[in-house]
């Protein structure tokens, strides 16, 4: 089991846009480099990617929530 942490402080989003489904759903396979979310920092959107492979367990924070750098955004099994 491992955590995916936020690289920057900002607002975390599960989805590429409000109308689309989340990047990952529980049970999805996650490869190294897969995008799992977006961080909005100072009006710029930065991709959050997995640095290890695994199975997506779930998001640890709600969609469109403020997060600090290092906050655990999601967990992998």
């Amino acid at each position, binding site marked *: 089991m491992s955590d995916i942490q936020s690289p*920057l*402080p*900002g*607002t975390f989003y599960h989805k590429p846009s409000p109308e689309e489904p989340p990047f990952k759903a529980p049970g999805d396979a996650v490869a190294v480099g897969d995008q799992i979310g977006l961080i*909005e*920092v*100072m*009006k*710029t959107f*930065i991709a959050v990617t997995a640095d290890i492979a695994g199975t997506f367990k779930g998001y640890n924070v709600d969609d*469109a929530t*403020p997060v600090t750098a290092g906050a655990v955004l999601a967990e992998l099994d």
Partner: protein
Amino acid sequence: MAIQRLFIANRGEIAVRVVKAAKALGIHTIQAHSEADTEMLAVKLADEAICVGPAQSKDSYLNIPAILEAAKSTKADAIHPGYGFLSESPAFARAVEEAGLIFVGPSADTIERMGDKVAARQAAEAAGVPVVPGSDGRIDVSEALTVAEKIGYPVMIKAAAGGGGRGIRIAKNEAELKTLAPQAKAEAEAAFGDGGLYIERAILSPRHIEVQILGDGETAVHCYERECSLQRRRQKVWEEAGAMCLDDETRENLCASAVALAKAVNYRGAGTLEYLYDEAANEFYFIEMNTRIQVEHPVTEMVTGVDLVAEMIKVCGGAALSMTQDEIKKTGHAIEVRLCAEDPFLNFMPWPGVVSTLKEPTGDGVRFDHFLSEGYQIPPFYDSLLGKVIVHAESREAAIDKLVEALESMEIGGTKTTAPLHLALASDPEVRKGAFHTQWLEPWLEAGNLSATKGDAA
């Protein structure tokens, strides 16, 4: 009628600027803030502060009911909107007026009229202000050829129904227009369900020049022009007062045209008319009006000595303009650079750090407008502007030298800033000559002119 309790519905450096100006006028200041901004400098400086909502702007600084509620509960009699956020929202200005408070800016009707591109263009033409030659409203493909012949190539083809950059094409001659106009029509039909086109002369590589105006609803004056051609992604990064590329006659005509338009719309408050300037043809064209105080207003204050923020507060409180045109004199040259929390060596990646050390640039003719303090965590939720370094000297050359000294003496630890970009620009021969336009900075960056070594050496 004069304002006694001013509510500041903004954040960052402009909130600090407004709080200081209002306090100097003896006005009680009430600072709005989001949950993420409790530690910001304007909150500490204001007489009182009130939370208007969560971190995200749409829930706080853009939340009209929350702001009005906070203004009423703190017994404010006026609201200053700053720039950005709700400053150019007619709905907000109208809500403030309807709540019986003073909006520090023009009327909601003026904001609405000047915020509509077509209405603003018509108002400009009616006041005798030159606009980019173009078609009179929407046209079809065959009319486009006739109109282009009249206004001259190159022409820009836009969707009449569109906004933003969608469907914009540039045709250099008739052959290109014959190919591109049907494409633009098809794209406009697909995107907007309306194939109507609009064409205007394409001004390639223009300079961006703007005129500062002040009005009290009865009369208006100008405080000369600024040049803001150094832009990245349509954001100004370096601004000057005045524009060295203009001769005296052109400057006089430009400023007179701005005053004519301001008077024609009975403008109240501080405003800016933006123009494109075609240097080769020595022609200027009105593009839009900003009905608020602007980020770069300090360069105008430095060369004229006019306190624009104080003046807008006074006239919106019902006073007549405190100066006549003859009393507004210009001395020397001023430059402002925008300091953003970004890493200029890493494609301007945002960098919201904690300010570990702060040594402000100081000295004669040096001004630093900012909202930083040691230990301050720069919030990640808003734009990256941290402050502005402004310098004033006898000549442009001396102002650039002073800018270098100011930037080198300044220290902001714990975060990245765009200061290295400004040092590199200040040492560039083209910038020194003033030989640039709005399309200059991005290719300069792409060509690798900003490298770590150059930034350090500058």
